């Protein structure tokens, strides 16, 4: 089994390195095929490992080699395949295999074809390290690795200023959060003496609550950065500057869920500090609604889906914060499937529409892109949580968790958000695929994408359809051997049915409303002048706020540091020291007039000074003073002489 572990881990790396060799060359189809094949190998290996774990096999724990061993600190390159990481491995390898094959079609005409595949595989490798590591240090390597690949891929079209800006924004925001994460890790090592999950978690039972709370908060700030939770959320929507397969893989299905994975992985920690957990859940619910509200009005197809991702991440954090770790992980998995599908569908639409992103310029595309229409609708239905698609089983479960745990406010927020989710998803579907063909006025000629791309997407469509009812049972059985096995059942069957059917009805109504309202894509001037509309379309003015109150003051501060501190203090003192030597040399180079007599005089003067000093120090300071006066007079006389 170890062989499969290493195969799953290292085949993306090999693919990345090989594709990287051809990075500067023009497109070679081989790199795409090669990396996709290796990714498929990783997928097969992960499946074998999954089957092994599902059959109740032992957790596979290997140590590749020692990384750091100094004093009491011991950090190995250790990898573990247990019930949690195998789920993540499946999600990562499956979605990335699909995305790799999809990208062969999507990046067909791109100059950076080979480079793209190198980055993409490097991302998968980093993500695999992140989920498979058996200690926090290894997780952090993967964490930074995915951050780097995310930066590379958002800024993939680096000739576009907006893309490089977005890449830097994502990177910097993540750095802020990573600092907190590092502090959390240091604290863990400080209190438990180890960064290995099993040792550290076992030690936590003997640590006081204050310290645990601090650790929990710092780790969660790290998770907030990666998972783009408020107030570090702005980078995710801007990250849509990257190629669409990247958005599907990194900014929807895998990397942004790393924060949720961290909380799930650290469940023994968060179990001990329910207050922090409750904060996580509250923030999650807030972000769910907050992000959904921005998706309601946005006119950029990819941004709408990005906000939807943000919103669903909020759901996951609600579950994780309330201690329902397996529910969070389940939603993570289901969400990865249908959200990746949604993004890939959006990519098809973009290709058909020459990279047009405004859904108000589309309409009626279902005639031209039947399969994309079907798949995106399927994904949206799953996202909305309609029975029996994947979203129903995972998302409604989170609602139930909130209800059973008696957090009725969270429940209400999540319920409203579910309606909003249904609304904005079908607003998008309606605008793109239904109604009149508005794109004709703009001179577009939409066409369906390559067949192999559609076939590559089909596994995701099937999973979005069946992942819920097919896998839920065996998933729970497997994962709850590792995670707290709390059952979330509403005791009264009447309440249960009212809630389930009620939710379905509300969601269904939202869908119907969205269809009706946007079928003709009329832009209502009255709504657009509305205060709330302005608030939402400007993303609650938060990017504006950051610009005005953080970026600009920081720039001012930097200017002061540059002009006042650096130039006037640091540079000035360095230049000053250099100047002293320069001026001294300038003033004394006349001494070297080449005349032997002068040199001899200086020599005598020097000897005399030394002699007098020697005498003075043995006889008294009065003599010293005398010596100085005599010496000064003599030297002065010499100076006058050579100036003449």
């Amino acid at each position: 089994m170890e062989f499969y572990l290493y195969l799953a881990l290292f085949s993306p790396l090999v693919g990345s390195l090989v594709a990287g060799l051809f990075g500067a060359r023009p497109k070679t189809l081989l790199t795409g095929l090669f990396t996709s094949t290796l990714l498929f190998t990783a997928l097969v290996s992960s499946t074998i490992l999954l089957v092994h774990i599902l059959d109740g096999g032992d957790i596979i724990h290997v140590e590749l080699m020692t990384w750091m061993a100094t004093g009491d600190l011991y950090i190995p390159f250790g990898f573990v395949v247990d019930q949690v990481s195998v789920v993540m491995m499946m999600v990562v390898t499956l979605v990335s295999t699909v995305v790799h094959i999809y990208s062969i079609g999507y990046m067909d005409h791109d100059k950076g074809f080979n480079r793209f595949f190198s980055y993409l595989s490097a991302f998968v490798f980093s993500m695999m390290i992140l989920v498979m590591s058996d200690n926090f240090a290894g997780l952090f390597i993967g964490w930074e690795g995915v951050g780097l690949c995310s930066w590379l891929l958002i800024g993939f079209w680096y000739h576009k200023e907006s893309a490089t800006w977005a890449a830097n924004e994502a990177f910097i925001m993540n750095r802020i959060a990573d600092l907190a994460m590092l502090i959390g890790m240091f604290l863990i090592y400080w209190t438990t003496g180890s960064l290995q999950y099993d040792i550290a978690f076992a030690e936590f039972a003997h640590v006081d609550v204050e310290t645990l709370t601090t650790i929990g908060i710092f780790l969660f700030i790290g998770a907030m950065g990666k998972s783009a939770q408020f107030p570090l959320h702005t980078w995710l929507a801007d990250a849509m500057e990257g190629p669409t397969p990247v958005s599907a893989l990194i900014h929807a299905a895998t990397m942004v869920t790393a924060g949720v994975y961290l909380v799930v992985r650290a469940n023994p920690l968060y179990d001990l500090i329910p207050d922090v957990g409750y904060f996580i859940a509250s923030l999650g619910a807030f972000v769910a609604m907050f992000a959904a509200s921005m998706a309601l009005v946005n006119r950029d197809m990819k941004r709408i889906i990005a906000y939807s991702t943000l919103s669903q991440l909020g759901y996951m954090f609600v579950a994780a914060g309330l201690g329902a770790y397996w529910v969070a992980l389940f939603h993570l998995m289901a969400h990865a499937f249908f959200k990746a599908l949604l993004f890939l569908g959006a990519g098809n639409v973009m290709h058909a529409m020459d990279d047009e992103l405004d859904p108000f310029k589309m309409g009626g595309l279902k005639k031209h892109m039947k399969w994309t229409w079907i798949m995106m609708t399927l994904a949206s239905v799953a996202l909305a949580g309609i029975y029996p698609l994947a979203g129903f089983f995972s998302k409604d479960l989170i609602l139930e968790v909130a209800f059973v745990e008696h957090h009725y406010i969270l429940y209400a927020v999540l319920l409203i958000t579910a309606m909003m989710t249904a609304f904005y998803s079908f607003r998008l579907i309606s605008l793109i695929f239904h109604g009149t063909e508005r794109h004709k006025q703009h001179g577009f000629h939409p066409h369906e994408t390559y067949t192999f791309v559609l076939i590559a997407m089909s596994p995701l469509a099937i999973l979005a359809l069946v992942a819920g009812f097919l896998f839920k049972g065996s998933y729970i059985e497997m994962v709850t051997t590792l995670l707290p096995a709390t059952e979330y059942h509403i005791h009264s069957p009447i309440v249960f049915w009212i809630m389930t059917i009620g939710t379905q009805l509300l969601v269904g109504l939202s869908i119907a409303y969205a269809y009706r309202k946007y079928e003709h894509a009329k832009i209502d001037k009255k709504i657009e002048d509305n205060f709330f509309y302005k608030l939402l379309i400007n993303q609650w003015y938060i990017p504006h706020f950051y610009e005005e109150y953080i970026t600009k003051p920081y720039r001012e501060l930097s200017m002061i540091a540059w002009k006042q501190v650096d130039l006037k203090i640091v540079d000035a003192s360095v230049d000053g020291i250099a100047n002293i030597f320069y001026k001294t040399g300038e003033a004394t180079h006349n001494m070297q007039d080449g005349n032997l007599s002068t040199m001899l005089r200086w020599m005598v003067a020097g000897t005399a000074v030394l002699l007098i000093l020697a005498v003075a120090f043995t006889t008294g300071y009065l003599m010293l003073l005398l010596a100085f006066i005599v010496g000064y007079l003599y030297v002065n006389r010499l100076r006058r002489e050579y100036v003449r």
Partner: protein
Amino acid sequence: MMEITLSHYLILSTILFAIGLVGVLKRTNLLMLFFATEILLNAVNIGFAAISRYYGDLTGQMFAFFVIAIAASEVAVGLGLLIIWFKRSGDIDLTSMTSMKG
């Protein structure tokens, strides 16, 4: 008749040293510079010999011999260089030797 003590020798040595020093500093003729150097060295030699006699220790006189030997070799080399310089430039005035000007 006054007895000649150690201090007389040392005073003589000092006076000679001072004369030599002034000569070294003031003379511009290279040959005279050599003379002045000789005076300096021999002033020191007087000191060595006198103190050696005073303490009844032969080390000082040994030292004086070494100084004489070194002075001789110095003059031999120095005069050789001086002659070459005179052949080239036609004078041995120090003020004209400024090729090392900084």
